[in-house]
């Protein structure tokens, strides 16, 4: 046998005991050709195009999963930012289109469809504004539609008019779903420097530089990394980085192989591999626990940023060596509600909102799946978004905000979002107002790219 016994055992152990999985196979679909001045025509075309392109997505992914013995957890779809095809559609029609997307997702058996999006980091077009106005209702009347809004980039600065609106939209979406703990907000991401080929929800969309259709793959495996580190309790940090790197390499190779096979069978080009450590509420599938294994008593304490920076970079290095096309967000996600270790950090008062904010400087995304007190004002939400966008803009990285103000809940209470979205302790916000700052509006100019201290 030219494969060593130990190697086979390692792979099997990773899958069966350490929850190695392909987190998502996401098919990107271009919808630009569906645009039409007649809304009904557009609506029908969108539905037909998505359901015909992705007709075999689920079936094929499940087949590959069986043959190779590595689970593919989610099959998803990302589409052209919907604002780009809205044209003269009305707000009601934009909501109608969201329902059509929801219906398409249900028919195909995919759990999320991403791309109810608008890129407004510089300015807001007519279609963009329609989409923004439709967001609260669209998200609260659909189950599987995910939205993302780009409000800032390093090259354009921060569009504070859009940021102001986003605070209000989040607040309104939360109110509209107050009987379900504000769940609509869990499907809405506000981005700085978004990427066009991200396969992970809720921030996935099919960017304008992409082709007609593409398969992007997201691999995860915090459990595998955690267990690998547990076998080296006394290694120095250089060796820790090396262990993470090697593990990331193996995980990525598995994902790349399966992604390519799915793409080949669907006769769609293979886009990118996104290796992101994305936690789930499963036992030992936590990013926070990796940080704790590196040596922190509790995530959030001093040293958290350094440990996270080490981990994030090592994951990227391993991933970059393993695949010719690494893209998406590749790194580590730190959603709160989906990570048991993060939840414990908050409940033990080790992890605070400001520490989470600081962590976003070195992780791959941002403030993610954080439950906030229902009393938070729209202006505070906007200011929070502005802070995150500034971090992303200056550091030339993707940052995002996906927070959920939970109506009627106060700091310290626990809320259940159910399923993949998990549960989270409600966090308080700074009581001082940011109203005047947010209401100024305008654009924060793009930063200088030199003199970078």
């Amino acid at each position, binding site marked *: *046998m030219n*494969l*060593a*016994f130990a*190697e*086979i*055992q*390692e*792979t*099997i152990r990773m899958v*069966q005991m350490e929850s190695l999985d392909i987190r998502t196979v996401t098919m990107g679909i271009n919808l630009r050709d569906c645009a039409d001045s007649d809304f009904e025509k557009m609506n029908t075309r969108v539905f037909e195009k998505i359901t015909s392109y992705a007709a075999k997505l689920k079936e094929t992914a499940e*087949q590959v999963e*069986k*043959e*190779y*013995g*590595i689970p593919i957890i989610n099959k998803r779809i990302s589409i052209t930012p919907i604002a780009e095809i809205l044209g003269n559609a009305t707000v009601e029609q934009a909501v109608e289109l969201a329902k059509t997307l929801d219906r398409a997702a249900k028919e195909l058996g995919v759990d999320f469809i991403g791309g109810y999006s608008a890129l407004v980091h510089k300015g807001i077009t007519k279609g963009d504004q329609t989409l923004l106005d439709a967001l609260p209702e669209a998200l609260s009347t659909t189950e599987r539609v995910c939205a993302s809004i780009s409000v800032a980039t390093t090259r354009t600065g921060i569009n504070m008019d859009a940021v102001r609106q986003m605070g209000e939209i989040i607040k309104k979406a939360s109110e509209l779903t107050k009987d379900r703990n504000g769940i609509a907000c869990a499907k809405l991401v506000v981005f700085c420097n978004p990427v066009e080929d991200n396969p992970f929800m809720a921030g996935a969309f099919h960017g304008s530089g992409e082709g007609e259709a593409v398969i992007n793959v997201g691999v995860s495996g915090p459990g595998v990394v955690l267990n690998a580190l547990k076998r080296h309790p006394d290694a120095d940090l250089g060796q820790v980085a090396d262990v993470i790197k090697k593990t990331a390499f*193996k995980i990525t*190779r*598995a994902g*790349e*192989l*399966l992604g390519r096979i799915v793409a080949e069978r669907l006769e769609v080009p293979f886009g990118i591999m996104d290796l992101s450590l994305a936690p789930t509420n499963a036992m030992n599938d936590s990013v926070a626990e990796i940080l704790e294994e590196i040596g922190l008593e509790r995530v959030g304490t001093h040293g958290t940023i350094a440990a996270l920076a080490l981990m994030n970079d090592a994951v990227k290095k391993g991933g970059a060596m393993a695949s010719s096309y690494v893209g998406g967000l590749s790194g580590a996600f730190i959603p709160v509600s989906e990570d048991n270790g993060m939840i414990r950090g908050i409940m033990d008062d080790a992890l605070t909102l400001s520490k989470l904010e600081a962590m976003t400087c070195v992780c791959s995304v941002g403030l993610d799946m954080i439950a906030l007190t229902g009393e938070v004002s729209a202006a505070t939400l906007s200011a929070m978004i502005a802070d995150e966008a500034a971090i992303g803009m200056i550091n030339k990285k993707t940052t995002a905000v996906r927070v959920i103000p939970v109506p009627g809940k106060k700091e310290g209470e626990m809320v259940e979002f159910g399923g993949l979205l998990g549960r989270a302790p409600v966090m308080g916000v700074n009581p001082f107002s940011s109203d005047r700052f947010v209401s100024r509006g305008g654009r924060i100019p793009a930063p200088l790219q030199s003199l970078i201290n």
Partner: protein
Amino acid sequence: MSQKRAVVSVIGKDQVGIIAKVTTILADNHINVLDISQTILQDFFTMMMLVDVSELEDLEELQTAFDKVSNELGLKINIQLEEIFQSMHRV
């Protein structure tokens, strides 16, 4: 046509007749065993078999047959195409 190979892995508590049952399924499906290795690790039986599945359209039927034995003997039996191991462990 090049050979299509898969790895059958069996993990569980050691007991009489594991290899016999697994290989019976393979024989019934006309599958040739190319290599086999087995150890006992802390009471746990682990066996890996490399088999030729060139003639097989899909592995599902085989997996279903293995699942029956898995339940009967309380073992984990999986069949996976070989490439996954190649790509994870060999550059």
